[in-house]
């Protein structure tokens, strides 16, 4: 008998949980992110920015209250992400979906957005094709080719003849590798070698030794943010690769705050490409960084800016539609929308619903005893090259 | 005597420098009751492990009927009728006696591999198992989990499991180990009552039991066969006297 009770008890528990928060006229945003697990920090940083934005701009838009419901995917889990999206829609009847740190999850939820005709804002996931999954989807982060292909071209134009690329062996890594090489080759450069290391890779020394043996003019590195940038940076220094002689190129993750901190002077001179850094020099950004630090005692990063601009897009779109929340009107409102973000001028491409923005080239330098990413060159109004090619 | 059912030729086995079996020549005719005696460490259990296939001999052959079984897996030897029991109860604590024996019967009948038909469908097998248990006076307790049976009953279950495989040769490793003397006689009475077709080789320390139930006796010392013969001969044999029976430690 006890066991039936257990079983029934559990169903009862689920039942209680189910009772939908009685639908008042609030606009509900479903946030789907990996709040736990190895990507937790990216989610935290994005969530911070979202909270900050709502604190600054208030939580009512077009006369309706904004209510955020947070769901955790626990990491790369498209099946979970998709289920959560479905539940957010049928259980909590949210009006739009946002967040999305990880590509597979974003791709999976794309289907739901398309089927349920819900506006969906990708605030980070950076694989080019994502936005093609649903006509109601817009992106406020970046695409990897947008950065690396541009970077490849830039590197060639700035006198690097031959390069060795090393990337993590997974989707984004492959994107980065291919688009960088493409940009570099098309500008007439030569790729003398490349290696892909496993995503779960505790020790880089061996791979770096390989690169060093060929002694290239420049090494392009891509690793996911988090543990690895610092590790590989240290390994580079340890293997005696001096950024002043052999140019070290990478995407911004490579010289994130924590990475620079633990690399120390080893990070000096590393060249990176990115679309945002808290050190970016503009009044708007200074204010943003200040507010962010006051609220959370740390600097914002690209995930923060993605979330911040994402919320801005949502707010503005809602204002435009006067609070109408159906997918059509919202995406229509979002298309072509442009504004001044802490990262600089950005806009949503009317055709691809993807972001158009300025790409910055930075160098790690000591400023007042502090290691910073210093922007010294930029390419404006960069669209995602992949989708540009698709159209052709 | 008829052609031997089981015979071994010059079996050798040693663990490193320790020789546990040397030049073991056995030949057991059908239906005999052989006792295997000898001091502790004489290699009696090792010999049974060799014959049963738990251990591989370094040299020598084991022949069952016409067939050389030296290289066969233990279960293959069982299928051919060469079966052993264990000195220390080696049973299925959480299976009932009935389940245990039914399992053995199913194995013999080659149906233990079928997973699409319920056990209840195998009435004959269950009946046979039940009969075996009853014949060994376990009928009343056969529904209890093995671990709840009295020690003596568990010893009987050891034998029941072996019988369920319809052995031609039965190797009993101290069937009465740990059983008080008065009970052990009953237990051996049961063994003596087994079919005359069945050949039995049993290890036993209690000489009274040995001389009462064994038709022939093999004496092992230090991994070798010291002497083999009728109980009376053994009792009389001087080497056995000083070598073993002398200050013999029974049990």
């Amino acid at each position, binding site marked *: 008998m*006890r066991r039936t009770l257990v079983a029934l008890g559990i169903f009862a528990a689920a039942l209680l949980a*189910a009772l939908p928060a009685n639908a008042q006229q609030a606009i509900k945003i479903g946030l789907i992110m990996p709040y736990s697990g190895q990507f937790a920090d990216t989610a935290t940083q994005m969530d911070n920015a979202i909270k900050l934005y709502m604190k600054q701009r208030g939580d009512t838009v077009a006369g309706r209250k904004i209510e955020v419901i947070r769901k955790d995917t626990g990491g790369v889990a498209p099946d979970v992400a998709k289920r959560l999206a479905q539940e957010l829609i049928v259980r909590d009847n949210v009006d739009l979906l946002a967040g999305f740190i990880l590509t597979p999850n974003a791709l999976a939820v794309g289907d739901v957005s398309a089927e349920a005709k819900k506006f969906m804002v990708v605030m980070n996931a950076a694989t080019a094709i994502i936005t093609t999954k649903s006509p109601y989807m817009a992106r406020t982060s970046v695409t990897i080719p947008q950065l690396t292909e541009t970077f490849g071209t830039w590197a060639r134009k700035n006198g690097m003849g031959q390069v060795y690329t090393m990337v993590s062996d997974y989707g984004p890594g492959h994107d980065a590798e291919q688009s960088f090489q493409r940009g570099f080759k098309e500008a007439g450069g030569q790729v003398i070698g490349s290696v892909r290391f496993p995503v779960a890779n505790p020790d880089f020394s061996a791979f770096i030794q390989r690169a060093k043996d060929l002694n290239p003019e420049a090494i392009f590195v891509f690793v996911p943010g988090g543990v690895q940038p610092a590790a590989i940076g240290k390994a580079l220094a340890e293997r005696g690769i001096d950024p002043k002689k052999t140019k070290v190129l990478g995407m911004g993750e490579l010289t994130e705050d924590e990475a620079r901190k633990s690399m120390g002077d080893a990070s000096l001179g590393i060249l990176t490409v990115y679309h945002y850094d808290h050190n970016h020099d503009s009044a708007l950004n200074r204010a943003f960084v200040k507010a962010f630090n006051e609220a959370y005692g740390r600097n914002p990063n690209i995930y923060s800016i993605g979330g911040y601009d994402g919320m801005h897009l949502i707010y503005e779109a809602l204002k435009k539609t006067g609070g109408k929340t159906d997918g059509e009107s919202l995406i229509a409102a979002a298309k072509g929308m442009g504004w001044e973000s802490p990262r600089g001028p950005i806009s949503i491409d009317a055709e691809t619903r993807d972001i158009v923005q300025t790409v910055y080239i930075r160098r790690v330098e000591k400023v007042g005893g502090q290691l910073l990413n210093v922007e010294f060159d930029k390419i404006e109004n960069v669209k995602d090259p992949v989708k540009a090619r698709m159209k052709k | 005597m008829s052609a031997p059912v089981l015979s071994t030729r010059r079996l050798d086995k040693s663990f490193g420098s320790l020789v546990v079996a040397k030049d073991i020549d056995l030949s057991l005719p059908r239906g005999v009751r052989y006792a295997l005696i000898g001091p502790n460490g004489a290699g009696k*259990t090792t010999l049974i492990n060799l014959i049963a296939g738990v251990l591989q001999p370094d040299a020598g052959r084991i022949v069952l009927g016409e067939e050389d079984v030296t290289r066969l897996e233990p*279960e293959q030897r069982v299928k051919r009728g060469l079966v052993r029991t264990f000195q220390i109860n*080696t049973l299925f604590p959480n299976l009932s006696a009935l389940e245990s024996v039914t*399992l053995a019967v199913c194995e013999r009948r080659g149906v233990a*591999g079928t997973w699409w038909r319920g056990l209840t469908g195998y009435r004959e097998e269950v009946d046979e198992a039940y009969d075996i248990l009853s014949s060994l006076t376990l009928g009343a307790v056969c*529904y209890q989990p093995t671990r709840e049976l009295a020690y003596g009953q568990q010893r009987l279950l050891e034998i029941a499991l072996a019988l369920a495989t319809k052995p031609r040769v039965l190797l009993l490793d101290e069937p009465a180990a740990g059983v008080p003397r008065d009970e052990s006689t009953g237990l051996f009475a049961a063994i003596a009552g087994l079919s005359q077709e069945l050949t039995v080789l049993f290890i036993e320390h209690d000489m009274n039991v040995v001389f009462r139930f064994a038709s022939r006796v093999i004496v092992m010392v230090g991994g070798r066969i010291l002497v083999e013969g009728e109980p009376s001969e053994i009792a009389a044999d001087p080497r056995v006297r000083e070598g073993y029976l002398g200050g013999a430690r029974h049990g």
Partner: protein
Amino acid sequence: MTSTAPAIGDPHRCLRAQARWRGIEVAFWLATPLPFLLLPSHLQLASHIAITALFTLSLDLILGYAGIVSLGHAAFFGLGAYAAGLVSKAGWGEPLTGLAIASAVAGLVGYATSAIIARTRHLALIMITLGLGLLLHEGANAAHWLTGGADGLQGVRMWPLLGRFRFDLYGYTAYAYSLVVLFLMFLVTRRLIHSPFGLSLRGIRENAIRMPAIGTPIRSRIRAVYTISAVIAGIAGALLAQTTETVSLATLDFQRSAEVLVILILGGAGRLYGGLIGAIVFMVARDQFSGINPQYWYFWIGALLVSVVMFLPNGILGGLAQFRPLSRRAGVPAALGQRAPGWRASGILEGIAQLTSSRRDKSS
């Protein structure tokens, strides 16, 4: 009921009593369709629970009944998922055939690997299953051209089930589909447990040394059960792929292997229903905790596990079974919660146990 031993001379009654459906079991299965009525907005979750339950059931078959601890069972789940996904991607979106093909693939690989499984035991066995699982995971990541690598398999589209029911947003079809498959697979497993084969598995678990002495070819039995388990795991994986139309490396993850193990132990291994109860408790708890506290829900899950171990040894069902001492008498592992305490899977400790016992053997 079975608690009192039947009259002497009727062994059949006793055995039949063990195999008989108990009221509690019937009640359990009658309760499973309730979500359609009570929780229509939770059907997607219910479907995932059913799938997890099926996956756990497949693990219970080898762990609970044959004593094989596996830390790489996700391999078969993932194989099933990718097989089903690829079939649909290749243009054949019919669910049932996809299910069949997936189970076949998982079964084949299961049979192939079972050769190693049957030869090793204890920690080595656990680690080899783990290793194989991780190898497959890396392989799937490397085979980007086939699996889509870390981005997951794209373009999985299922046709309506039976040509009538499309997989809807609410998950009516998904849950119905998963539940029916779960129930059918459960029937198969239940029958298997009560078959001579199931009895021999219990024999292997109870005493692997004795089995050869009654003529059991242990290895072939283990290979058989391992293959069957792989098939069921593959079906579970295929169900997930089909009902969510997503396949990713996550299906092959070490986490998934570890999680299903945790779920099984939580519910109670070797009890047939342990996996199902474990799946329900774990998934519902996770859904609730992560809903309330998306960042730190791990803490509460952890607390749940710890308290279960402390208050309900041998899993929820095992613990509850203690409160019904009578149920032990019958010694019926198949029935809910019933299995004598003090049982342990052939794990690391078993090794030490074997050691000492073999020592004793020599000293004869």
